[in-house]
């Protein structure tokens, strides 16, 4: 990832009727990676993207996209966009939709024709490009949506809930396409509340709730504090060793020990000590907070979010056995 491609500060949007969708959002998006904007429904994610795409007029917005002021129309020629619940004219064929959007983006006819063929192949719709949109399934429409978002060879691609309503197979293919886009050097900005999917592909994320960004950074940075090693043992451990481990900061609960460290080195003497007492090591695993846990932690409690703690659904942490 390289320079910042989107840099906004103090972005506010108050709709008529007093609804405050954005309350001073500041956001920096690094170029050349996949950026995920997370948040519950109604957090203001779509409003933020729509402001960046000049679809919604901000009450206040300072900053730039690709080095130019937000709302600068010619900049949009360098940006692609797939809106949430995208609707494309049913009377057009898949290839025609792509060429229509290319025309709106100012792409020349010959380039549009060439790009539409390439993109249809890329999204796996090569054999369907000459069928009308009305005959497509939801997943096929999303693929065409993705293709049209890329027709102007954009530097940034905004995808608003791109996997909404798409089946698991389609989601997998969508993820692969997003990774292809990243490999092509594009910045992919995804708006989603499907955290599991974002976690698999995003390089950096921002968590948004009630019109504010409450956390931002790479997934590694955001989950670093919660990184730990868990050790499960079998057999008795002497009270001396237990006391020593506890005094060294090891949390012990039943037959499980937790060591809050990102580095596995401090685990080695603990393993040695346990083995010297003849304790069986059943499992040693690296545990990192999942994006879902991070998200719930961010939006719950007394913070900006305000989701009640007891409403948190049961979660499984991401585990990697070593």
């Amino acid at each position: 990832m390289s320079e910042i491609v989107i840099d906004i500060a103090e972005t506010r949007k108050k709709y008529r009727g007093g609804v405050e969708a954005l309350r001073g959002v500041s956001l920096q998006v690094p170029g050349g990676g996949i950026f995920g904007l997370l948040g519950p429904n109604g957090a203001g994610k779509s409003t933020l993207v729509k402001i960046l795409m000049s679809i919604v007029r901000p009450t206040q917005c300072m900053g730039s996209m690709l080095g130019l002021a937000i709302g600068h129309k010619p900049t949009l020629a360098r940006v692609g966009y797939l809106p949430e619940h995208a609707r494309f004219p049913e009377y057009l064929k898949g290839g025609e939709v792509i060429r229509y959007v290319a025309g709106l983006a100012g792409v020349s006819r010959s380039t549009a024709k060439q790009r539409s063929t390439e993109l249809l192949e890329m999204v796996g719709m090569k054999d369907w490009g000459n069928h009308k949109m009305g005959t497509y399934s939801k997943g096929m429409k999303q693929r065409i949506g993705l293709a049209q978002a890329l027709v102007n060879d954009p530097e940034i691609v905004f995808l608003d809930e791109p996997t909404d309503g798409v089946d698991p197979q389609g989601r997998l293919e969508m993820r692969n396409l997003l990774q292809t886009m990243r490999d092509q050097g594009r910045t992919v900005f995804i708006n989603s509340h499907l955290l599991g999917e974002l976690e698999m592909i995003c390089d950096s994320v921002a968590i948004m709730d009630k019109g504010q960004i409450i956390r931002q950074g790479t997934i590694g940075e955001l989950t670093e504090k919660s990184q730990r090693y868990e050790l499960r043992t079998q057999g008795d451990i002497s009270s001396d060793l237990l006391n020593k481990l506890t005094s060294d900061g090891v949390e012990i609960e039943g037959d499980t020990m937790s060591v809050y460290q990102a580095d596995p080195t401090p685990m080695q003497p603990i393993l040695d000590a346990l083995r010297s007492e003849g304790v069986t090591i059943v499992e040693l695993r690296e545990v990192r907070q999942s994006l879902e846990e991070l998200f719930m932690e961010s939006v719950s409690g007394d913070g900006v979010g305000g989701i009640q703690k007891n409403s948190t659904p049961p979660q499984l942490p991401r585990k990697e056995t070593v």
Partner: protein
Amino acid sequence: MRQILTILWDSYRLLAAKKLFWIVLSLSVLISMCYASVGFTPEGISVFFGAYHIESDIIVADSIFAEYLYMMIFTDYLVPWWLGMFALVLALISVCPVFPDFLKSGSIDVAVSKPVSRVTLFLVKYLGCLLFVAIQVLIFCVIVFFAQGLRVNAWNVEVFWAVPLLTFVFSLIYCVAVLTAVWTRSTLFSLLMALLMWGVTLAVQWAEMFAYAEAYTKPAVGMQMDFKTGEISYSDEPQEPDAGMVKFHNVVKAVGSPLPKTREATYLLKKKISIQGKNMTRMTEFIDMSADKYERRQAKAQEAYENRHSQVYIIGTSLAFEFCILGLACWMFTRKDF
């Protein structure tokens, strides 16, 4: 320019995808073919390619009256009633959903997020919808043009004035639908509002026409009508305009001034088309040499009636109306959050 052509081309594809477009086109072709079936012989008029024959002493082949009648069928019946009324209603029903559909979430987002100004997007989309009428009328006029050329040997390109005039008339009604659509995003409401506005303007125009005829035309002809018995009598000399009717006409005209002149704009076609170098509204120039003084007086009064409003007044006031309505719609469109 690329963006403008893209929107226009999309508009054409949208219209071509509508069944009603092809239904109206088929009806237009059928009606124009019926028109083309009328011909003139040395004995009179032949209808349906000679299936029927109407004898006449005046309206015969190669006479100016035959040419006038043939053109009049086009300007006074086909244009105002088929193209200017029924086809226009069908066109309105067909294109009314265009803006509400375009403004739906998920659809408008794609268009607005492109490097095209909202004003351009709005105006070109609006113009694209007018293609419905422009294409229909153009095809109709092509058939009429050839019919007139082949039937009365009048290769009159002025018939093509119907294309811009009827498209303009349609635009006057459609702009109300567009404003309502931008405001409410409802197809039904925008259609109802457009029809309501059209109805009101037609009522005011017909009232004005009636008031003018009562105030000026009938007295100029010397015609008097007893409204109780329905008896009509003619005086030897023209009468002075009726003061009460003149006042009523002035009021109706003032009320109608800011409204679009849909009917009058349609009839402007008669001013644009000439027969053997004579404007069709110049009735006195077409009158038969043997006509008596009543007929001459009637022709003169009719000519005054046809020319009571200048083209500048008809087009100017209608354009002002359209400019205001469309300007408001465009302003709302550019300010709207989608």
